[in-house]
């Protein structure tokens, strides 16, 4: 208790408080700009921490992390361009909500869910960090493979209208994920001797093309049939849903936060996987799954709660084991070492103030999301008042510079341009760009884990059957995959019976 009081006093020091505020807002702005991620925002801020006290420096980075994880939802909702990889799933329902004139509500839900998720994972982190770290160590290749399948299993929910086409879209995504150097053999696959394909295709560039650019093409078609007009003439600002209405969706908040925290704890998994799995679970467990993708509030709450819960979750293995819980946590871990802290089992014992200060910092940053969210949202939302020709060119220009910024490579811009056509034709022929992106994101982890586990099992599949945790997760994946299919078949059978 004394340590907690000391931590509160420490965090509330004027300098620390100011840095948490500034960090949260900076993180949100970076997160909202496509092409700039939480990782980049933290890297930009990192040099400023060299001369700071360790706790002060880490507080700043944590605040940027929290802000960035939430900020991605702003452009996802307003422009259908996820600002960060973690916000991919937020576009599925966030943008349709904006199109229905509910942009403010969608943003309010995103901020509320992000705040809830962060606070949830902060408490989990504080009270169970050493125990959860032990669980994280049990995850080997078989478990990662099963987890990847859980992520894929929500495709049947994403492609509710045409599940076969959704599966083909995922397969195409998995195929594109194999481009590059084979991680097991080191062989070049589908690179055609081009150096820029050695690292594979950057899925963020694909997302910008398939979502944002394709959307511009679609809107330009529609524009030719009507006057140039704005997307919305109403003022867009953060609109907080009434507490009692949010309480009705408590299960989505809690489940998604649990999923996000657990996925965040698993080393190298991260918020993007967490948000996709949480979204899939929200669809699967909903009484009206067909409404997802049309602007359902739970479709915003689920990914945002989980991607922010992954922030606190990812700090568990980072601090306790010295293994980064996510790509962004890897950068924070580097900061730990620069500041003279050694992540690992002894860290909490040697630096008891640190864990509690991070906890307080996470809580404070999540509360500040509401304040920062209002400011950042209001400024970004001015964009929606532009006539569509201006908005369309703004989205494309932002997409071009965002794609270029990923690796300072023009090839990513070309990828964005090409996948603009893919997204356009997918939309016309009712394939699923979302499912394609899902396959692209998860393809690497699925193939690598599958093959590694088989290598460990000396060419046999016994590794998957001998591990209870992997088996349990595989069963979850199968249930999640089949559940919408079975529901669909039962509905068709009922309709056939009632017609006859």
């Amino acid at each position, binding site marked *: 208790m004394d340590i907690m009081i000391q931590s509160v006093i420490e965090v509330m020091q004027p300098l620390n408080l100011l840095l948490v505020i500034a960090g949260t807002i900076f993180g949100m702005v970076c997160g909202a700009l496509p092409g700039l991620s939480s990782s980049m925002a933290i890297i930009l801020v990192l040099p400023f921490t060299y001369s700071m006290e360790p706790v002060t420096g880490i507080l700043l980075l944590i605040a940027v992390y929290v802000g960035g994880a939430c900020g991605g939802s702003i452009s996802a909702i307003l422009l259908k361009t996820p600002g960060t990889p973690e916000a991919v799933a937020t576009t599925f329902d966030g943008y349709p909500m904006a199109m229905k004139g509910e942009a403010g509500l969608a943003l309010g839900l995103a901020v509320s869910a992000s705040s809830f998720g962060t606070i949830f994972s902060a408490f989990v982190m504080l009270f169970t960090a050493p125990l959860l770290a032990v669980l994280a160590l049990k995850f080997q290749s078989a478990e990662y493979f099963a987890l990847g399948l859980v992520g894929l299993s929500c495709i049947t929910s994403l492609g509710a209208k045409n599940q076969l086409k959704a599966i083909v879209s995922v397969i195409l995504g*998995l195929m594109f994920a194999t481009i590059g150097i084979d991680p097991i053999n080191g062989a070049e696959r589908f690179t055609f001797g081009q150096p820029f394909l050695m690292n594979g295709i950057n899925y963020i560039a694909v997302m910008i093309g398939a979502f944002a650019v394709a959307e511009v093409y679609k809107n330009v078609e*529609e524009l030719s049939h009507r006057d140039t007009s704005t997307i919305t003439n109403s003022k867009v600002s953060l609109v907080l849903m009434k507490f009692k209405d949010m309480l009705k969706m408590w299960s989505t908040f809690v489940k998604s936060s649990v999923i996000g925290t657990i996925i965040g704890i698993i080393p190298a998994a991260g918020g993007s996987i967490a948000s996709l799995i949480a979204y899939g679970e929200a669809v699967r467990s909903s009484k009206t799954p067909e409404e997802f993708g049309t602007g359902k509030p739970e479709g915003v709450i689920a990914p945002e709660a989980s991607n922010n819960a992954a922030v606190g979750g990812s700090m568990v293995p980072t601090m306790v084991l010295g293994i980064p819980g996510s790509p962004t946590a890897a950068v924070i871990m580097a900061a730990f070492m620069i500041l003279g802290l050694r992540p690992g089992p002894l860290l909490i014992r040697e630096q008891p103030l640190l864990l509690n200060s991070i906890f307080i910092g996470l809580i404070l940053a999540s509360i500040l999301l509401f304040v920062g969210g209002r400011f950042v949202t209001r400024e970004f939302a001015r964009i929606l008042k*532009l006539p569509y*020709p201006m908005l369309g060119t703004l989205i494309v220009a932002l997409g071009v510079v965002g794609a270029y*910024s990923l690796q300072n490579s023009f090839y990513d811009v070309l990828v964005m341009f090409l996948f603009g056509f893919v997204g356009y034709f997918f939309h016309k022929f009712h394939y699923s760009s979302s499912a394609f992106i899902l396959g692209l994101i998860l393809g690497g982890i699925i193939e690598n884990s*599958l093959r590694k586990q088989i*290598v*460990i*099992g000396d060419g046999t599949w016994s590794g998957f059957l001998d591990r209870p945790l992997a088996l349990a997760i595989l069963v979850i994946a199968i249930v999640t995959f089949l559940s919408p299919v079975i529901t669909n078949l039962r509905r068709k059978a009922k309709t056939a019976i009632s017609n006859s």
Partner: protein
Amino acid sequence: MEIIFNIFLAVLMLLYLFLASQFNVTTVTGDIFGAGGYPVVLSILGLILIIVISISVIKNKEKVRIPMLDYKSIDGKAVLLNVTMLSGYLILMNYIGFLFSTPLYLLGSTRFMGYKKIIPLLIYTAVLSIVLVFIFGKVFYVPLPRGVGLFRELSYSIY
């Protein structure tokens, strides 16, 4: 039209299958898939599903209109113009740099999309170009494309 798209996807998968089957047998003990095994499985699965979907498309005879491929229609012309402007932007960027190609794209594309008011358009073009160059070039130190020759030299004075 959808059948043609499905044929295109099937050809892509067949090409992928062909290339994947050429990959060398694994050098790692226990790796039963090798570099090509997993891609082969994916492409076979994909081909089977494409065939099933195509049969369904032929049965349903649903017509899908693709404005981008119908350059005689108004919406087709609009979207093709947009594609052309974007292509031109990306090509020009390599020669005259981000700093000069972006205002040209913003001005031209917005105008061609039907926005007619010149003064607001010029203000929008100038403000957005400056903001993008400042935020990404100066604040985030992104080495935006500079172009060649004089354009390259000029860009160094800005970012």
